[in-house]
């Protein structure tokens, strides 16, 4: 699971046409290398994928006759597509809530702990630096094995963490939270450190308690960061694939298969690239909806604050 942070959009200055043209001339030249790569590796494949979703193309690139919307029709009538889409949504909800709340909690804790701060920062952020394969194998081979795993050994239980449809998704979420909470933690910590100290001083003079300060200063001042974290987290969680593929392969009984793995399964092991493209575009639409909702949300906030 990787998180990409979009660069802030440059707003064109409302200036004279003369100035604008020269910006275009120089600017285009500067962004040309990026644009070239962007078009070749993002725009073009996106369009190609859309085209593929209307054909029955296989992994060898043959059999690419146009089939209209039949891939989409098949996908909407495919219980496993719905199941995997549902799994992705369940994972998104189950992981986003603790990842945001825990990130905030840890940041507050570290911010207020005034000794060996670097150690806390390192401990909470450390797992985020591990590649998904390392994290998955660590949990799969050492923590979750039912017979000799650390978790059953510590708790004295006998749970098939990844083998039982009832616990598998929770286990995946637990691993993910441990792995990626550090990123949200870091964003919150940075935001906490940029809250002006004088607000707290003023509050202290007014006799505010620690709880009042948290409720009336800290949390409101973190509002924008929270919005950012929630959106980044939603997008990252919707893209879940690595750890589930590596830890459960989508099982048991399809209880954890996310929609990206379903697209991978029908495309790369089932050799049906056309159908896999259609499934991918269903997720694509979902992500676009979330992004649009986020844009609206941010715009409203901006209006309110201005």
């Amino acid at each position: 699971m990787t998180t990409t942070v979009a660069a802030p959009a440059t707003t064109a200055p409302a200036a004279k046409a003369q100035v604008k043209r020269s910006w275009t001339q120089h600017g285009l030249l500067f962004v040309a290398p990026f644009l070239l790569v962007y078009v070749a590796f993002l725009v073009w494949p996106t369009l190609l994928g859309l085209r593929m979703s209307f054909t029955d193309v296989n992994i060898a690139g043959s059999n690419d006759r146009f089939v209209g919307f039949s891939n989409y029709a098949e996908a909407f009538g495919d219980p496993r597509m719905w199941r995997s889409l549902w799994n992705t949504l369940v994972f998104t909800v189950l992981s986003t809530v603790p990842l945001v709340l825990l990130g905030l909690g840890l940041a507050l804790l570290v911010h207020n702990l005034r000794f060996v701060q670097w150690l806390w920062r390192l401990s909470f952020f450390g797992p985020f630096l591990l590649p998904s394969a390392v994290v998955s194998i660590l949990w799969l081979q050492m923590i979750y094995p039912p017979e000799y795993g650390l978790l059953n050994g510590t708790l004295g239980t006998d749970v098939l963490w990844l083998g039982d449809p009832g616990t598998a998704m929770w286990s995946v979420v637990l691993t993910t939270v441990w792995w990626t909470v550090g990123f949200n933690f870091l964003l919150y910590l940075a935001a906490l450190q940029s809250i002006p100290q004088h607000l707290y001083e003023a509050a202290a003079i007014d006799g505010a308690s620690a709880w009042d300060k948290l409720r009336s200063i800290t949390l409101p001042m973190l509002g924008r960061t929270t919005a950012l974290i929630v959106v980044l987290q939603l997008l990252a969680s919707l893209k879940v694939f690595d750890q589930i593929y590596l830890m459960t392969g989508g099982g048991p009984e399809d209880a954890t298969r996310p929609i990206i793995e379903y697209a991978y399964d029908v495309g790369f092991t089932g050799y049906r690239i056309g159908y896999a493209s259609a499934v991918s575009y269903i997720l694509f639409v979902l992500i676009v909806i979330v992004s649009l909702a986020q844009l609206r949300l941010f715009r409203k906030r901006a209006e309110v604050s201005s």
Partner: protein
Amino acid sequence: MQDPPAITRRHLLGGSLALLGAAASGCAIPVGLGSSQTRVKYWHFLGASDGIIMNQMVGAFARDNPGVFVEENVLAWGEPYYTKIAMAGAGGRSPDVATFHLARLAGIGAGEILDPINVDLLAEVGLRAADFSPPIWERAHYQGTLYAVPFDAHPMVQYYNTDLCGRAGLLGADGKLRPTTGADQLLEQLRKAKEVLGGKPPLVFDALGLGTVGPWRVWYSLYPQSGGTLLSEDGGQVTIDDQKALEALRFMRRLGEEGLCDPTTDYGASVAKFTNGEAAFLWNGDWEVTGLKERKTPFSMTRFPSVFGSGAAQADCHVFVLPHQRDRDPEVERATYQFIAYLVKNSADWAVAGHVPSYLPALQEPDYLALQPQSEYRSVITDVALDPQVWYTGSASRLWIEFGGAFSPVISGERTPEEGLANAKAALSRLMSAPNPFPAEER
């Protein structure tokens, strides 16, 4: 508030360059071969202890053929292997030869992903149709064209610990396991072994885990014994006999319920437990012989027990295929056929790995007949249950993984046999209704 650690632009650039350098040197392809050698790229997935034998055979070929360098590339077994073959064949820049499972031939798009075998070149290196087991040779064809050179068959077999079975009084006067017939005799045998083990499950097999296919292998050994089939001859109709299918599943559940098999062992754990003498029986393919011998486990092997009638056992076959290449170098091609012929003609060496040769002359060789315990189960070769010949079957296919996933919770009791069968049948009908990615009429 603390300042963030200062990273100057120079540091960043220097660091990135160092990283790039490390990445570049890590990707370098090992060269260092004589320029006069013909290089044959060979992919296979033989990662169990049969991989040790394959590596020795490739080494032996190199000693006998100094003009050819075989670059052996061992990839992970299973679905990812077949994805890689498909991708390599689709791109046309693929390995010169690859090991493959015979039952996957119908689903790979032979003709697109795989190139046909040149029968003339094959004759030139001394291999003819008459040299191979006829049903296997026939299945190496797809729509009348030969796409694979058969190498072996690898049935499900029963490994048994001679020490534990001896203490349980299960061995005959000749020191071999007394064969059982029917469910009751097998259960009785397992109960005796359980006593010797102090109540621990005496039987292990791949019963659980990521993409497990073990439950399918066991079921497709038991179910065909009573004459059960999956699909009609043309692959168009489901022909599962519910009574017989449930009978086999209930038997598997009973093994789990009575603690006669361990439902919590995955593939690795099942082999490890048997190797360490923590279990008296292992149901697995025939490929773990070498590893068990190396670790000095006191063991022997025999045919999969007959429970419901015949002595059928699930099996697939290893074959050699030529993934599609846009430009095949004639010299490399000749060397490739030489290499294939060398391996096939030395099938008796390969049989050391446990597999039953499909090259008939090897079956008569005294070397093979003297192999112990590998020749103990060779009679199964007429009773093997191969997958139905449709596009979604074969080793590590969707069918295996779906059925494995449906039956694994039956063994542990999380699902009833009826639920397991219903899930498997639902999966089968999904697979049947999905379109073949390589439709036959295209070619």
